[in-house]
């Protein structure tokens, strides 16, 4: 069985399962997310955009825009 990365996009309340190798930056590009507007947590730890991802990682993309 191929392991897929579990990604939660908080703002859309959407979970994606994806096979991906690369950095956080690459993933954000692929998902069309502006790095200025989101924070990324991998396995519940805040990471920088150069962080390399594994398919066993659980990734959360958190929106930084306030809801008012």
């Amino acid at each position, binding site marked *: 069985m191929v392991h897929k990365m579990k990604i939660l996009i908080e703002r859309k309340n959407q979970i994606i399962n994806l096979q991906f190798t690369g950095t956080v930056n690459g993933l954000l590009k692929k998902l069309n997310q*502006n790095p200025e507007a989101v924070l990324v947590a991998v396995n519940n730890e805040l990471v920088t955009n150069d962080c390399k991802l594994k398919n066993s990682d659980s990734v959360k993309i958190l929106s930084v825009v306030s809801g008012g």
Partner: protein
Amino acid sequence: MHCTKCTNNAVYINPTFCKQHFLLYIEKTVEKTIKRHSLIQKNDHIVVAVSGGKDSITLLYILNKLKPKLSFTLAALAIDEGIAGYRNKTLVTVNDFCKQHAISLNIVSYKDSFGKSLDKFLATTHKNTKPCTLCGAFRRTLLNKYARIYSASKLATGHNLDDESQAIIMNLLRGTPQLSARLGPQTGVIEDDLFVPRIKPLYFIPEKQIAAYSFLMKFNIEYGECPYVVQAYRGVIGELLNKYEQKHQDAKKNIINLFLKNKKKLMKLSIKHEKKVNYCNHCKEPSATAVCKTCVLLENKQYI
């Protein structure tokens, strides 16, 4: 990537710091803003407007931490507009947070002040009024009035670098740059007994850094969105600035710095800018016009 101050892994880039150094950096930035712009003086009583979002909770936490060092006192003030399914949740966040940190909290509701909740206003007498128009006026009136009633020498709000740079650009694009004269790290410095000056200690901190701070601090924040929120224009501007920021770092910071340099000129441009505060004929609260916006919206029927 490593922290620029130690050998630990960075949790944030630009400024590139580990968790510990990042938290310290944010707190230092707030302290510097307060000192450089003389936002808080010794013996001030600061009332913090809290909504339960990341900005106001971060502000409340950091001010509470700085309180002994800068020798001021602190209390929290929350407005309950009466928005079912939203505000009741964020008020639980605020209440728990204040209890945990032993901060005194007062909650003032539209219902007690104006006779009806926001939900009720919008469903009955104000069907054709934009929710944010009502809230903008009511919130402003209540924050000032209750900050004063609770003896605040200053009212602190959680506005950040993104909020402020967006407002400046919006005023510019709408052709009303003079409205920006009301922005800045402190406003309402005109001496008046009824008017509480406002301060924005998070003024120089980008939204993303505040989100990172509150994530790292594990603040228990309700991330819901107000059901009435219509941020169409502000949202577009925010997105535009973030796109620009990606290519030109510090774009947002450059906007507010340019603004701060020119604020005096803008104040001269501002037609409405007067040195003296006027009072609403109806409720007697400070107002730029003969009858304040809140009383106009209430059609002078309800007194506060």
